């Protein structure tokens, strides 16, 4: 029963993890799997820079212990950018001027995907609520909100 081997999938690929179960998903993604899209900002679930989708739900990978993700499916920005939805969001971010320093962007993009999956035509309030766990110190958020609106308009039928 005390089995530390953990099987899970990342961006569609099967992975087996055999290390400390209390390591954070964030560190395993960045260091073991060389997927540096998710960033460490605060390390305590407050800033959203490390956001990924876990079984389709937005989570902060800095508070997720490896021991708890057996059998689960992880989607990072590296996986999302290969999909039509991901391309649509990323282009909308570029066109809306939603990227400045870029540190928050992978997390913001994952949060945007989570918003659009739940509601393909979100109103501004829904977008702001959906992004409320992601901090950006550059843009003042308006351009990011615009980017999600733009993605929603351009990507009709994608979500």
């Amino acid at each position: 029963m005390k089995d530390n081997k953990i099987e899970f999938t990342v961006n569609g690929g099967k992975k087996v993890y055999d290390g400390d179960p209390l390591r954070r998903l964030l560190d395993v993604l960045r260091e073991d799997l060389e997927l540096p899209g998710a960033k460490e900002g605060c390390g305590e679930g407050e800033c959203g820079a490390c956001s990924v989708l876990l079984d389709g739900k937005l989570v902060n990978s800095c508070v997720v212990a490896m021991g708890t993700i057996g059998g689960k499916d992880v989607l990072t920005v590296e996986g999302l950018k290969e999909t039509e939805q991901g391309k649509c969001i990323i282009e909308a971010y570029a066109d809306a001027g939603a990227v400045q320093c870029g540190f928050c962007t992978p997390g913001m993009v994952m949060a945007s995907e989570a918003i659009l999956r739940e509601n393909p035509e979100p109103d501004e309030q829904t977008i702001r609520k959906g992004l409320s766990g992601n901090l950006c110190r550059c843009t003042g958020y308006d351009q990011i909100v615009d980017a999600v609106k733009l993605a929603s308009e351009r990507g009709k039928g994608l979500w």
Partner: protein
Amino acid sequence: MVNFYCPETLEEALSVRSDHGAVPLAGGTDLMVRFENWSSLPAGIPGPVMSVGQLEELKYIREEDGQLCIGAALPLNQVLEDQRIPRSLAAALDEIAAPSLRNLATLAGNIQNASPAADSVPPLLIMDARVRLLSSAGSRTVDMGDFITGPGKTVLKEDEIIESVRIPMDFVNKEAAGILSYRKVGTRKANALSKLSVCFWAETEKGVLKDIRLALGAVAATVVRLKEACARPAPLRRSACRRDGPSCR
């Protein structure tokens, strides 16, 4: 490396708990932060740890013995999305952290963390909720008001886990007929700890407030329910209400 257990059934979880005293870990939003290590090092939770988020037996909401029971391993967002839960609880859960943390955090975790500012506790106190605890030896049910004894302290024993939080259907059924107000004051809207939270509910009858229930968070060592202040019926004066309050009527 600490001993880490990932039991497949509730029964297995209870024996791990009693044999090894393993700390139950659900979403990790409190434990992984409290025992955060230097960046890239594993969290330093001392002693054996047991994952409980995978236990399907603890992921449910159902009516049982006149109570609405919320399983301990259900993430807050799933609790929040369930139309059966009281509006006072929904209002509080909706303002806990942000969507990404609510996809991980659980009601049982919020209670066991026993923060004086825990946002789920004021509504649970006013509705006379109870906490069901399980161990290999049996079960017991404790009033919410007796479960938390101080900051970070609860009556949970070394061999017990929280099975569910139970809300009397009595309250669930009559909540909509009363006046409800929930306010949380924090430094910002999302991801902020409460500096003060207020949960108020009362029945009204011919302009008089009856069965007044009021609980305050972040004002004392534990969240407190003000029973004495609410003991007598009070006349309802509209002028006493803040007109810009979100749920004042």
